[in-house]
């Protein structure tokens, strides 16, 4: 950012569009993911339609039926998004606090704790949470939140630290309050980095939410569990594929968010 501000005289004649901000590679990923996801879900639909005519295994039909899968996908997404919202609501303000001059010294210990949260095995974390707080949705959300704080926190800190200090000082020099500099200059400029953290967190969450079923909080993990405990290979395979597709979809959503959140001109 600072390098650009101090760039030598090289007048850019063309107006910079969003095309400039995104590499060809990112563009391919952005278009390829929805295609893969649609094809994936379509094959699942085809399988469900055709398999029920020749396979009369009630377990398979139940576990992979539309009703079950739609409900579990809904639970899975709800877990993911509620946890993601909590993560953002906690990690971003925390990141802000940990980059202010007066409280900066707290950053290393707090990041250390967040690191520990992520380093702990996710199954362990979820089971431990269930032992302490009982089974259910909110326990799962709580455990997922702790698990996914780190990427957003770390990126908020790095993003804010990456904002050119002279811009902050220019803002103060013009008479903006420190609060206003934070809201109108620092956070918008740090947003791309923060959003990368949010995308990482989303991907972590959508994967880890598979474990929520162990403590009765639902999600697509249920199908996998059924498949494994009753040894039905189609159920295991389709369960895994559906989780992977959902993860891809969330990854895609994260990338779109990243792109949309990027301030113009940066």
């Amino acid at each position, binding site marked *: 950012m600072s390098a650009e501000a101090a760039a030598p005289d090289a007048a850019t004649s063309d107006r910079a569009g969003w095309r400039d901000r995104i590499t060809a590679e990112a563009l391919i990923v952005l278009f390829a993911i929805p295609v893969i996801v649609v094809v994936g879900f379509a094959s699942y639909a085809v399988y469900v339609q055709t398999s029920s005519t020749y396979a009369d295994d009630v377990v398979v039909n139940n576990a992979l039926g539309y009703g079950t899968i739609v409900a579990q996908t809904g639970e899975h997404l709800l877990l993911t998004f509620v946890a993601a919202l909590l993560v953002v609501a906690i990690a971003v303000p925390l990141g802000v606090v940990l980059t202010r001059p007066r409280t900066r010294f707290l950053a290393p210990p707090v990041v250390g704790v967040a690191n520990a949260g992520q380093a702990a095995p996710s199954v362990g974390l979820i089971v431990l949470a269930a032992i302490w707080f009982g089974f259910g949705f909110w326990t799962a959300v709580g455990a997922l939140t702790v698990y996914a704080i780190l990427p957003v926190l770390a990126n908020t800190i790095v993003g804010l630290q990456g904002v050119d200090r002279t811009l902050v000082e*220019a803002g103060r020099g013009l008479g903006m309050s420190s609060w206003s500099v934070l809201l109108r200059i620092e956070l918008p400029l740090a947003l791309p980095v923060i959003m990368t953290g949010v995308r990482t967190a989303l991907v972590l969450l959508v994967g880890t939410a598979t474990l929520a079923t162990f403590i009765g909080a639902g999600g697509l993990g249920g199908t996998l569990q059924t498949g494994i405990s009753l040894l039905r290979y189609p159920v295991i395979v389709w369960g895994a594929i559906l989780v992977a597709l959902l993860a891809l979809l969330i990854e895609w959503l994260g990338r779109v968010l990243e792109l949309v959140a990027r301030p113009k001109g940066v």
Partner: protein
Amino acid sequence: MTVTDDPTSSSTSGSGSEISGAEIRLEEVTKTYPGQEVSAVKSLSLTIPAGEIVMFVGPSGCGKTTSLKMINRLIEPTSGTITIGGDDVRSRSADELRRTIGYVIQGGSLFPHMTVAKNIAIVPKMLGWDADRIRQRTDELLELVSLDPARYRDRYPRELSGGQQQRVGVARGLAADPPVILMDEPFGAVDPITRQRLQDELLSIQRELRKTIVCVTHDIDEAIKLGDRILILQEGAEVAQYDAPEAVLASPANDFVADFVGAGSSLKQLSLTRIAELDLSEVPTARVGEPTAEARARAQAAGHDHLIVLDDHDRPTAWPWLRQLKGETIHRGEEDLVNLDHRATLNDALDTMLTSSHGAAVVTGDRDRYLGVVWFDTVTSFMRQQQEALAEEGSGA
């Protein structure tokens, strides 16, 4: 053609418009950074008269920036008092104070995620101006810093060249019409030709506005060119000399100043003499849109093989040879013409001429209006005269 301004006037602020600046006084101002034994600024006392440009100059680390930032309280003094227009800067909150002081820093420091117009509108918005007034003011300021509002107001900083960014930075500093403007090495990040243009523009703006401008630089030539007064500082912001540029050049207060100002003071004289002091030559002109044949005939009748193209605002846009003229009507020309403000120094003039195919420079006045042309020979003969005058003085004494 002779420029009408009084050529003997040494003040760069010129005369005419009214002073809108305010006096700044520093009394026994000291700044000791925490954990440091030596003060960065030690007991600095200084009066900066209203409506003048005062240049803070000195070696790196001597306390220029610290002194400057104490005026708008980006740095709080350890002790001492600073007043602006008689009011103690501590009588208001720091944020309120800063909204009444323009602040311009190196490279412009524009906010990259805001358009040019939004950058300029920051202070007026905080002061609660309505949208119409802000829009009007933004366009007015862009005109003032020689940027076409229609073309530039909605651009983002990265779509501008370094020089253009710096211009917007100056416009942002002027936005709410503050009486005092602080500048910290404002033109340090641009190439020499652009820097010279920006300096000329600043002088031209100041001629109109008559603000109190405090400007930090490490470049003695810039200080001599821009300053009504120069404050030469040494370690700990100790005042080595505080005087008009002419006086600093003619009689350095001590060895430090003499060293800092440097050898070759006759070369420095080039930085003291303004184009306005020379006789400008006339060259045929043509207006954008005028039939080419007429313009060509006029130039030939006057015995010239070139002409200067002016736009509707009398601003020179091109300086073609007659044989280069194409098309039915005169057009602006593709490349930007490097003009010379009549407040530019002979030093600048020589720089500009080196890049011109005519071995001369087009001189402009307020708001870039065309005044005439200065030829290389004019400058050299002027210098010869001055040398002779100096030599005579020397032998007479």
